[in-house]
């Protein structure tokens, strides 16, 4: 169902809900399109008129600064009108159902929803219920997916390492169990035939049957980083200590924190990534975060071009007129 939901009859992107259900050609198209927009965002006049007159609503049911800001900038650089709506969980509880909220916004002739919500499956649910001309972009749903984050990470890796993912070993380190970013990255890297994909964490942070997603599991950071070309560190939430997932940040850092010494087992030209925001001294130390291997700020920059690519592609098939070339 997700395949039909995301891809239109013409084979082009209709909604962008999860990496799962897409194909390699589409991922490559997103990356190539993002590459063409990367030039735009570096010019002094940073706008293209692709989505002029279109209305995009950032519908955020969960707090976010970075993701919402880059979506907003991406939309504005495509010349769309942008509306930011932040609905805290508490006010959503007060009565209006999600579907009612959606219908009301649709009545204002919106063309696209960018949605973030704490419940897994929300973007799929919304995509199933919007009118045919409205597109939905998933900006993070529960622990399920954060596909634009994964695409900007892939874009970053491609810029750093070139287009041949088959020779790369990638290690994702940290809280896999609760991470929508990790799930999307795993699907994207496997779709691009990555050479080896590892996840590294204590058992409490590894979800059941994670191997079925196509990863090798490591519990030892030293082993997990050996000869890695790319290391992706995940953010650790404080709640994990309360839920008895971990004893302390201190022990986590001692065992899984990324330091220059630990990085020594990886390839000499290893690339270090993090979706942000970083807990310095928990996931990694500042020498690594700010060091020569880190591309953490590049990730943020590329986030705009990648989101421009996804937005313009998802809007495109509906009118079939405009082209970004």
């Amino acid at each position, binding site marked *: 169902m997700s395949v039909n939901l995301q891809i239109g009859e013409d084979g082009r992107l209709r909604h962008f809900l999860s990496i799962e259900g897409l194909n390699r050609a589409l991922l490559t198209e997103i990356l190539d399109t993002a590459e063409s927009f990367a030039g735009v965002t570096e010019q002094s006049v940073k706008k293209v008129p692709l989505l002029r007159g279109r209305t995009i609503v950032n519908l955020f049911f969960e707090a976010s600064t970075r993701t919402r800001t880059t979506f907003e900038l991406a939309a504005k650089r495509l010349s769309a009108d942008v509306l930011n709506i932040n609905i805290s969980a508490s006010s959503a509880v007060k009565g209006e159902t999600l579907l009612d909220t959606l219908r009301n916004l649709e009545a204002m002739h919106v063309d696209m929803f960018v949605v973030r919500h704490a419940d*897994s499956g929300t973007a*799929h649910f919304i995509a199933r219920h919007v009118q045919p001309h409205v597109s939905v972009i998933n900006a993070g749903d529960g622990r399920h997916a954060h596909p634009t984050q994964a695409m900007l990470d892939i874009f970053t890796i491609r810029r750093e390492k070139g287009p041949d993912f088959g020779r790369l070993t990638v290690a994702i380190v940290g809280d896999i169990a609760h991470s929508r970013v990790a799930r999307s990255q795993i699907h994207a890297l496997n779709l691009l035939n990555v050479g080896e994909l590892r996840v590294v964490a204590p058992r409490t942070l590894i979800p059941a049957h994670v191997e079925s997603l196509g990863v090798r599991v490591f519990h030892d950071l030293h082993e997990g980083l050996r000869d890695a070309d790319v290391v992706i560190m995940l953010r650790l939430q404080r709640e994990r200590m309360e839920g008895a997932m971990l004893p302390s940040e201190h022990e986590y850092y001692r065992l899984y924190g990324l330091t220059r010494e630990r990085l020594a087992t990886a390839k000499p030209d290893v690339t270090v990534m993090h979706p942000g925001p970083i807990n310095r001294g928990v996931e990694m130390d500042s020498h690594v975060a700010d060091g020569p291997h880190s591309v953490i700020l590049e990730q943020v920059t590329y986030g705009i071009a990648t989101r421009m690519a996804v937005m313009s592609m998802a809007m495109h098939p509906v009118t079939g007129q405009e082209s970004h070339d």
Partner: protein
Amino acid sequence: MTEASIHIRGGHLVDPANGIDAVTDLYIAEGRIAAVGNAPDGFTADITLDAGGLHIIPGLVDLCARLRDPGQEHKATIDSECRAAAASGITTLCCPPDTTPVVDTPAVIELIRHRASQVDGARVVTLGALTRGLLGEHLSEMAALKEAGCVGVSNALKPLASTQIERRAFEYAATFDLTVFLYADDPALSMDGCLHEGQVSTRLGLRGIPEAAETVAVARDLALIQQTGVRAHFCRLTTERAVRMVARAQFDGLPVSADVAIPYLYLTELDASEFNSDFHFIPPLRTGNDRAGLVTGLRDGTLGALCSDHQPHEADAKLAPFPATEPGASGIDTLLPLTLKLAQEEQLALGDAIARVTCGPAAILNLPCGELSVGRTADICIFDAGAHWQVTPDTLCSQGKNTPFNGWEMPGQVRYTLRNGRIIFTREAR
């Protein structure tokens, strides 16, 4: 009111309790089974039903059906569901105590009985609350509930505050020879979960409910059953391991029985893999291996009953992101067809399959129905095994249209349902 004398002629009678599986005649007088085979002396039929080509079985006893009444009449009512049950060959519905208000006083039992008596449909029996308000902290007035007619006690899906409360509740229930109906769940392990913890929950990023949420609870409950000597019934087991634990306890002589709800015999976690809320169940759909273990338990009798676990909802209850939807499926309409399908697919002998929805649950509830012995109440279902129908919202009689079996082709169409010797449902042959 004297009931009509009825002669049911030439049907294929399947009565597992009496080991009958043959084409024969059935005679009903004064609301009871008067004879099987030859007419009793001086019998004159007021009504003759020609059952040629049809099956005759005891009226079904559904061990768990939520009628949503009182309290959630926007989902369903006693009226709507008792009629739907009659149209599906079900003559007895057992409803759990989690209505609003909770079934923890004789007044609520009386209210349900009164409403059910106004309907020409299935009879309704109720389980009483094990604890006051189902809050898990204070014992309910179980003796009063029993006197008022409840057929057992249960805390429905609600947890008990401690194992000590559970122990005392078991002891108190045993004092009055009440069966406790248990939902095997360790709440700390299942908290906020909405899907089996496994590859699908991992892929979809949904909070999982591990197998151990059920097995830990079964182990704890069995220890307390042993300690207290209470008669207990495990409702809706979902895992192969739990079935084996109960089988072992039965072998050891503990007074325990168990049932399974029919969706768990056909569906697994994989069916929920597209966030389709019709597959949101609590307890959750498990793995293929668990499904097979449940069928085995049903076949060898560890699981003595098969129920619908009927949970009708209004459409809005399923219209939200998966974790925010209400769990459960409407199941009254599909209980008999899916039971027959088990036999058709040779997972179970027809007699055994019928037993699990008739005499099996009747024995668990200690009710004098579910069989066609002479002198018993004439609760009867007559169906056409060869007639097929398709599940759509329109073909479901229940007010709840939420079914995971939408579009499925179902065998078996009920032609007549009799309760206490009275025809409460008739469907013309097509």
